[in-house]
Protein backbone atom coordinates (compact mmCIF):
# COMPACT_ATOMS: atom_id res chain seq x y z
CA UNK A 1 0.00 0.00 0.00
CA UNK A 2 2.86 2.38 0.80
CA UNK A 3 4.20 1.96 -2.72
CA UNK A 4 0.80 2.75 -4.19
CA UNK A 5 0.47 5.88 -2.00
CA UNK A 6 3.90 7.04 -3.22
CA UNK A 7 2.99 6.23 -6.84
CA UNK A 8 -0.27 8.18 -6.57
CA UNK A 9 1.50 11.18 -5.08
CA UNK A 10 4.02 11.16 -7.92
CA UNK A 11 1.28 10.80 -10.54
CA UNK A 12 -0.74 13.65 -9.01
CA UNK A 13 2.31 15.91 -9.03
CA UNK A 14 2.94 14.96 -12.67
CA UNK A 15 -0.59 15.30 -14.09
CA UNK A 16 -1.40 18.45 -12.13
CA UNK A 17 2.00 19.96 -12.87
CA UNK A 18 2.61 20.80 -9.19
CA UNK A 19 6.16 21.95 -9.80
CA UNK A 20 6.99 23.18 -6.29
CA UNK A 21 5.66 20.13 -4.46
CA UNK A 22 7.46 16.86 -3.66
CA UNK A 23 5.71 13.60 -2.65
CA UNK A 24 6.90 14.18 0.93
CA UNK A 25 5.05 17.52 1.03
CA UNK A 26 1.68 15.81 0.47
CA UNK A 27 -0.08 14.67 3.61
CA UNK A 28 -1.78 11.40 2.68
CA UNK A 29 -4.59 12.02 5.20
CA UNK A 30 -5.32 15.64 4.17
CA UNK A 31 -8.30 16.51 1.92
CA UNK A 32 -7.37 16.87 -1.75
CA UNK A 33 -9.90 19.64 -2.45
CA UNK A 34 -10.52 22.91 -0.64
CA UNK A 35 -7.99 22.71 2.20
CA UNK A 36 -4.99 20.40 1.94
CA UNK A 37 -3.69 20.42 -1.63
CA UNK A 38 -6.34 22.99 -2.60
CA UNK A 39 -7.28 21.32 -5.86
CA UNK A 40 -10.28 22.49 -7.89
CA UNK A 41 -12.63 21.20 -10.59
CA UNK A 42 -10.05 21.13 -13.43
CA UNK A 43 -7.76 19.08 -11.20
CA UNK A 44 -10.65 16.74 -10.38
CA UNK A 45 -11.14 16.04 -14.08
CA UNK A 46 -7.40 15.34 -14.41
CA UNK A 47 -7.60 12.84 -11.55
CA UNK A 48 -10.66 11.13 -13.05
CA UNK A 49 -8.82 10.67 -16.36
CA UNK A 50 -5.60 9.61 -14.59
CA UNK A 51 -7.45 6.84 -12.71
CA UNK A 52 -8.98 5.69 -15.99
CA UNK A 53 -5.72 5.69 -17.96
CA UNK A 54 -3.37 4.30 -15.29
CA UNK A 55 -5.61 1.89 -13.41
CA UNK A 56 -8.56 1.23 -15.72
CA UNK A 57 -10.98 2.67 -13.17
CA UNK A 58 -13.94 4.43 -14.78
CA UNK A 59 -15.51 6.86 -12.33
CA UNK A 60 -19.01 7.74 -13.48
CA UNK A 61 -20.81 8.53 -10.25
CA UNK A 62 -20.16 11.97 -8.71
CA UNK A 63 -20.97 10.68 -5.22
CA UNK A 64 -18.32 7.98 -5.59
CA UNK A 65 -15.81 10.57 -6.81
CA UNK A 66 -16.43 12.74 -3.76
CA UNK A 67 -15.83 9.72 -1.55
CA UNK A 68 -12.62 8.63 -3.31
CA UNK A 69 -11.01 12.04 -3.50
CA UNK A 70 -11.20 12.57 0.27
CA UNK A 71 -7.46 11.97 0.68
CA UNK A 72 -4.53 10.10 -0.89
CA UNK A 73 -5.01 7.23 1.57
CA UNK A 74 -8.69 6.81 0.63
CA UNK A 75 -7.79 7.05 -3.05
CA UNK A 76 -5.04 4.43 -2.71
CA UNK A 77 -7.39 2.10 -0.88
CA UNK A 78 -9.99 2.41 -3.64
CA UNK A 79 -7.38 1.90 -6.39
CA UNK A 80 -5.98 -1.20 -4.67
CA UNK A 81 -9.44 -2.78 -4.49
CA UNK A 82 -10.79 -1.73 -7.89
CA UNK A 83 -7.88 -1.47 -10.32
CA UNK A 84 -8.15 -3.28 -13.64
CA UNK A 85 -4.54 -2.66 -14.70
Amino acid at each position, binding site marked *: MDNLVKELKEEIIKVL*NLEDITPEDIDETAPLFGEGLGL*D*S*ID*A*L*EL*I*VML*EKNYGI*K*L*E*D*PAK*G*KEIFQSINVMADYVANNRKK
Partner: protein
Amino acid sequence: MAETLEHKQWQGTTDGPQFLHRAIIPVMRWTPLWLHYSVLVFYVLGYLTFSPKSRRVTYQFFRQAMGWGRFKSMLGVLKNHFRFGQIITDRFAKYAGKKFNITVEGREIFDNLAEKPGCFMVISSHTGCYEMAGYSLTSTKKRINTVSYGKEVKSIMDNRREQFAVTGTNMIFVNDDMSHLFEINNALRRGEVVSIPGDRLFGSTKYIVCDFFGRPAKFPRGPFATAAQRGAPVITAFVMKGRYRDYHMVVRSLTDGLPDGLSRAELEQTIAQNFASALEAELRKYPTQWFNYYDFWE
Protein backbone atom coordinates in the same frame (compact mmCIF):
# COMPACT_ATOMS: atom_id res chain seq x y z
CA MET B 1 0.60 30.16 -18.67
CA ALA B 2 -2.13 28.77 -16.46
CA GLU B 3 -2.74 30.63 -13.22
CA THR B 4 -5.61 31.15 -10.80
CA LEU B 5 -7.96 34.05 -10.31
CA GLU B 6 -10.57 34.71 -7.69
CA HIS B 7 -13.83 34.76 -9.60
CA LYS B 8 -16.17 37.49 -8.45
CA GLN B 9 -17.42 38.40 -11.87
CA TRP B 10 -20.78 39.10 -13.39
CA GLN B 11 -23.04 36.17 -12.61
CA GLY B 12 -24.52 35.88 -16.10
CA THR B 13 -28.18 35.31 -15.25
CA THR B 14 -31.12 36.82 -17.11
CA ASP B 15 -32.63 39.86 -15.36
CA GLY B 16 -36.29 40.37 -14.62
CA PRO B 17 -38.94 38.67 -12.47
CA GLN B 18 -39.77 35.06 -13.32
CA PHE B 19 -43.53 35.67 -13.61
CA LEU B 20 -42.71 38.14 -16.40
CA HIS B 21 -40.53 35.55 -18.17
CA ARG B 22 -43.39 33.04 -17.99
CA ALA B 23 -46.04 35.55 -19.06
CA ILE B 24 -44.09 36.85 -22.02
CA ILE B 25 -44.08 33.56 -23.96
CA PRO B 26 -47.86 33.30 -24.51
CA VAL B 27 -47.95 37.04 -25.24
CA MET B 28 -45.26 36.59 -27.87
CA ARG B 29 -47.25 33.98 -29.72
CA TRP B 30 -49.82 36.64 -30.62
CA THR B 31 -47.72 39.76 -31.00
CA PRO B 32 -45.14 40.75 -33.62
CA LEU B 33 -41.46 40.79 -32.75
CA TRP B 34 -41.03 44.44 -33.78
CA LEU B 35 -43.47 45.48 -31.07
CA HIS B 36 -41.28 43.91 -28.39
CA TYR B 37 -38.18 45.52 -29.90
CA SER B 38 -39.93 48.91 -29.71
CA VAL B 39 -40.73 48.51 -26.01
CA LEU B 40 -37.15 47.40 -25.49
CA VAL B 41 -35.83 50.88 -26.33
CA PHE B 42 -37.35 52.30 -23.12
CA TYR B 43 -36.25 49.33 -21.04
CA VAL B 44 -32.66 49.61 -22.30
CA LEU B 45 -32.50 53.35 -21.54
CA GLY B 46 -33.79 52.69 -18.01
CA TYR B 47 -31.41 49.78 -17.54
CA LEU B 48 -28.40 51.78 -18.66
CA THR B 49 -29.29 54.60 -16.27
CA PHE B 50 -29.16 52.25 -13.29
CA SER B 51 -26.39 49.91 -14.41
CA PRO B 52 -23.13 51.89 -14.33
CA LYS B 53 -20.93 48.78 -14.34
CA SER B 54 -22.16 47.30 -17.61
CA ARG B 55 -22.12 50.82 -19.12
CA ARG B 56 -18.51 51.35 -18.01
CA VAL B 57 -17.06 48.00 -19.12
CA THR B 58 -18.79 48.17 -22.50
CA TYR B 59 -17.57 51.73 -23.03
CA GLN B 60 -14.02 50.66 -22.11
CA PHE B 61 -14.22 47.78 -24.56
CA PHE B 62 -15.07 50.15 -27.41
CA ARG B 63 -12.49 52.75 -26.36
CA GLN B 64 -9.55 50.49 -25.49
CA ALA B 65 -10.06 47.30 -27.51
CA MET B 66 -11.77 48.70 -30.60
CA GLY B 67 -10.00 52.06 -30.41
CA TRP B 68 -13.19 54.04 -31.02
CA GLY B 69 -13.69 57.71 -30.13
CA ARG B 70 -15.84 58.90 -27.20
CA PHE B 71 -19.06 59.57 -29.11
CA LYS B 72 -18.88 56.37 -31.16
CA SER B 73 -18.18 54.40 -27.97
CA MET B 74 -21.20 55.91 -26.21
CA LEU B 75 -23.33 55.01 -29.20
CA GLY B 76 -21.77 51.55 -29.10
CA VAL B 77 -22.85 51.12 -25.47
CA LEU B 78 -26.43 51.90 -26.46
CA LYS B 79 -26.33 49.55 -29.45
CA ASN B 80 -24.74 46.77 -27.41
CA HIS B 81 -27.42 46.87 -24.73
CA PHE B 82 -30.20 47.13 -27.30
CA ARG B 83 -28.72 44.15 -29.17
CA PHE B 84 -28.55 42.19 -25.93
CA GLY B 85 -32.19 43.00 -25.25
CA GLN B 86 -33.11 41.89 -28.76
CA ILE B 87 -31.27 38.61 -28.30
CA ILE B 88 -33.02 37.85 -25.01
CA THR B 89 -36.31 38.75 -26.72
CA ASP B 90 -35.43 36.41 -29.60
CA ARG B 91 -34.79 33.57 -27.16
CA PHE B 92 -38.29 33.97 -25.73
CA ALA B 93 -39.71 34.39 -29.24
CA LYS B 94 -38.08 31.09 -30.16
CA TYR B 95 -39.61 29.45 -27.07
CA ALA B 96 -42.94 30.89 -28.25
CA GLY B 97 -42.50 29.16 -31.61
CA LYS B 98 -41.42 32.07 -33.80
CA LYS B 99 -39.13 31.24 -36.72
CA PHE B 100 -35.68 32.70 -37.38
CA ASN B 101 -33.49 32.47 -40.48
CA ILE B 102 -30.07 31.03 -39.64
CA THR B 103 -27.36 30.84 -42.30
CA VAL B 104 -24.32 28.73 -41.49
CA GLU B 105 -20.75 29.20 -42.74
CA GLY B 106 -18.45 26.22 -42.14
CA ARG B 107 -21.16 23.67 -41.36
CA GLU B 108 -19.02 21.00 -43.06
CA ILE B 109 -16.45 21.36 -40.25
CA PHE B 110 -19.09 20.30 -37.72
CA ASP B 111 -20.63 17.66 -40.00
CA ASN B 112 -17.25 16.02 -40.77
CA LEU B 113 -16.46 15.63 -37.08
CA ALA B 114 -19.98 14.43 -36.33
CA GLU B 115 -19.59 11.69 -38.96
CA LYS B 116 -16.24 10.43 -37.62
CA PRO B 117 -15.96 8.24 -34.52
CA GLY B 118 -14.75 9.90 -31.33
CA CYS B 119 -15.66 12.91 -29.26
CA PHE B 120 -15.13 16.56 -30.08
CA MET B 121 -15.71 19.86 -28.35
CA VAL B 122 -17.40 23.10 -29.35
CA ILE B 123 -16.10 26.16 -27.50
CA SER B 124 -18.81 28.79 -27.37
CA SER B 125 -18.74 32.44 -26.32
CA HIS B 126 -21.06 35.11 -24.98
CA THR B 127 -21.48 36.65 -28.39
CA GLY B 128 -24.69 36.99 -30.38
CA CYS B 129 -27.14 34.23 -29.53
CA TYR B 130 -25.27 30.95 -29.17
CA GLU B 131 -28.49 29.28 -28.09
CA MET B 132 -29.60 29.45 -31.75
CA ALA B 133 -26.74 27.06 -32.59
CA GLY B 134 -28.58 24.43 -30.57
CA TYR B 135 -31.34 24.46 -33.16
CA SER B 136 -28.99 24.25 -36.16
CA LEU B 137 -25.85 22.31 -35.23
CA THR B 138 -27.45 18.95 -34.65
CA SER B 139 -26.32 15.41 -35.39
CA THR B 140 -28.11 12.11 -35.77
CA LYS B 141 -24.85 10.26 -35.01
CA LYS B 142 -23.70 11.93 -31.82
CA ARG B 143 -25.45 13.34 -28.80
CA ILE B 144 -24.64 16.98 -28.12
CA ASN B 145 -24.10 18.05 -24.51
CA THR B 146 -24.22 21.74 -23.69
CA VAL B 147 -22.54 22.89 -20.50
CA SER B 148 -24.55 25.70 -18.99
CA TYR B 149 -24.40 27.92 -15.95
CA GLY B 150 -26.59 26.10 -13.40
CA LYS B 151 -27.84 29.21 -11.64
CA GLU B 152 -29.66 30.78 -14.60
CA VAL B 153 -33.27 31.63 -13.71
CA LYS B 154 -35.68 28.69 -13.70
CA SER B 155 -37.97 29.97 -16.44
CA ILE B 156 -35.05 30.22 -18.89
CA MET B 157 -33.66 26.82 -17.91
CA ASP B 158 -37.04 25.08 -18.19
CA ASN B 159 -37.68 26.50 -21.66
CA ARG B 160 -34.15 25.81 -22.84
CA ARG B 161 -34.38 22.20 -21.65
CA GLU B 162 -37.77 21.76 -23.35
CA GLN B 163 -36.57 23.23 -26.65
CA PHE B 164 -33.30 21.31 -26.72
CA ALA B 165 -35.03 18.03 -25.89
CA VAL B 166 -36.56 18.25 -29.38
CA THR B 167 -33.10 18.37 -31.01
CA GLY B 168 -31.70 15.70 -28.67
CA THR B 169 -29.33 18.11 -26.90
CA ASN B 170 -28.48 17.23 -23.33
CA MET B 171 -27.92 20.05 -20.85
CA ILE B 172 -25.10 19.73 -18.31
CA PHE B 173 -25.38 22.25 -15.50
CA VAL B 174 -22.32 23.51 -13.66
CA ASN B 175 -22.78 22.64 -9.99
CA ASP B 176 -20.75 23.31 -6.87
CA ASP B 177 -20.54 19.56 -6.17
CA MET B 178 -18.53 19.08 -9.42
CA SER B 179 -21.05 16.52 -10.72
CA HIS B 180 -20.85 18.29 -14.11
CA LEU B 181 -17.24 17.07 -14.46
CA PHE B 182 -18.37 13.47 -14.36
CA GLU B 183 -21.07 14.19 -16.93
CA ILE B 184 -18.55 15.95 -19.22
CA ASN B 185 -16.04 13.13 -18.86
CA ASN B 186 -18.69 10.44 -19.43
CA ALA B 187 -19.94 12.22 -22.56
CA LEU B 188 -16.42 12.56 -24.01
CA ARG B 189 -15.62 8.96 -23.18
CA ARG B 190 -18.77 7.88 -25.05
CA GLY B 191 -17.57 9.82 -28.11
CA GLU B 192 -20.20 12.56 -27.86
CA VAL B 193 -20.00 16.31 -28.47
CA VAL B 194 -19.48 18.69 -25.53
CA SER B 195 -20.18 22.38 -25.96
CA ILE B 196 -18.75 24.69 -23.29
CA PRO B 197 -18.24 28.48 -23.02
CA GLY B 198 -14.65 29.65 -23.42
CA ASP B 199 -14.85 33.35 -22.58
CA ARG B 200 -15.97 33.45 -18.97
CA LEU B 201 -14.45 32.07 -15.78
CA PHE B 202 -16.88 29.84 -13.96
CA GLY B 203 -16.41 26.70 -11.91
CA SER B 204 -12.61 26.59 -11.71
CA THR B 205 -10.68 29.82 -11.24
CA LYS B 206 -7.67 28.74 -13.29
CA TYR B 207 -6.99 30.66 -16.42
CA ILE B 208 -4.77 30.87 -19.50
CA VAL B 209 -3.38 34.22 -20.61
CA CYS B 210 -3.91 34.92 -24.32
CA ASP B 211 -3.34 37.89 -26.56
CA PHE B 212 -6.77 39.46 -27.14
CA PHE B 213 -7.15 42.77 -28.97
CA GLY B 214 -3.40 43.35 -28.50
CA ARG B 215 -3.43 42.94 -24.72
CA PRO B 216 -3.08 39.94 -22.39
CA ALA B 217 -6.46 38.62 -21.22
CA LYS B 218 -7.53 35.73 -19.02
CA PHE B 219 -9.46 32.86 -20.58
CA PRO B 220 -10.82 29.97 -18.50
CA ARG B 221 -8.44 27.02 -18.53
CA GLY B 222 -11.12 24.33 -18.08
CA PRO B 223 -12.44 23.96 -21.67
CA PHE B 224 -8.95 23.99 -23.21
CA ALA B 225 -7.43 21.68 -20.58
CA THR B 226 -10.27 19.20 -21.12
CA ALA B 227 -9.73 19.20 -24.89
CA ALA B 228 -5.95 18.83 -24.57
CA GLN B 229 -6.34 16.07 -22.00
CA ARG B 230 -8.42 13.98 -24.40
CA GLY B 231 -6.65 15.12 -27.56
CA ALA B 232 -10.13 15.96 -28.82
CA PRO B 233 -10.71 18.06 -31.95
CA VAL B 234 -12.08 21.50 -31.04
CA ILE B 235 -14.25 23.88 -33.02
CA THR B 236 -15.90 27.16 -32.18
CA ALA B 237 -19.22 28.57 -33.35
CA PHE B 238 -20.45 32.17 -33.26
CA VAL B 239 -24.11 32.94 -33.94
CA MET B 240 -24.41 36.64 -34.68
CA LYS B 241 -27.61 38.62 -35.12
CA GLY B 242 -28.25 40.26 -38.44
CA ARG B 243 -31.36 42.14 -39.51
CA TYR B 244 -34.65 41.45 -37.73
CA ARG B 245 -35.07 37.63 -37.81
CA ASP B 246 -31.70 36.80 -39.40
CA TYR B 247 -28.77 35.11 -37.70
CA HIS B 248 -25.43 34.20 -39.23
CA MET B 249 -23.45 31.32 -37.76
CA VAL B 250 -19.73 30.86 -38.33
CA VAL B 251 -18.04 27.55 -37.48
CA ARG B 252 -14.23 27.45 -37.22
CA SER B 253 -11.77 24.70 -36.33
CA LEU B 254 -9.37 25.49 -33.47
CA THR B 255 -7.24 22.37 -33.83
CA ASP B 256 -6.73 21.90 -37.58
CA GLY B 257 -3.09 22.26 -38.63
CA LEU B 258 -1.60 22.21 -35.14
CA PRO B 259 2.12 21.31 -35.14
CA ASP B 260 3.09 17.83 -33.91
CA GLY B 261 4.90 17.23 -30.65
CA LEU B 262 3.23 19.94 -28.57
CA SER B 263 3.32 19.34 -24.82
CA ARG B 264 0.00 19.31 -22.91
CA ALA B 265 0.57 22.86 -21.69
CA GLU B 266 1.51 24.07 -25.18
CA LEU B 267 -1.55 22.38 -26.66
CA GLU B 268 -3.86 24.07 -24.11
CA GLN B 269 -2.22 27.43 -24.77
CA THR B 270 -2.41 27.05 -28.57
CA ILE B 271 -6.09 26.04 -28.61
CA ALA B 272 -6.93 28.88 -26.20
CA GLN B 273 -5.03 31.41 -28.33
CA ASN B 274 -6.74 30.13 -31.51
CA PHE B 275 -10.08 30.66 -29.76
CA ALA B 276 -9.10 34.16 -28.57
CA SER B 277 -8.03 35.09 -32.12
CA ALA B 278 -11.24 33.68 -33.66
CA LEU B 279 -13.34 35.56 -31.06
CA GLU B 280 -11.45 38.78 -31.73
CA ALA B 281 -11.93 38.42 -35.51
CA GLU B 282 -15.68 37.89 -35.04
CA LEU B 283 -16.00 40.82 -32.63
CA ARG B 284 -14.25 43.09 -35.07
CA LYS B 285 -17.06 42.23 -37.53
CA TYR B 286 -19.83 42.47 -34.89
CA PRO B 287 -18.40 44.78 -32.18
CA THR B 288 -21.72 45.38 -30.43
CA GLN B 289 -22.48 41.70 -29.89
CA TRP B 290 -20.24 40.67 -27.00
CA PHE B 291 -22.22 40.33 -23.80
CA ASN B 292 -19.60 39.77 -21.12
CA TYR B 293 -20.34 42.54 -18.67
CA TYR B 294 -17.18 42.58 -16.58
CA ASP B 295 -13.66 43.85 -17.17
CA PHE B 296 -12.17 41.04 -19.21
CA TRP B 297 -8.66 42.50 -19.04
CA GLU B 298 -8.56 43.22 -15.29
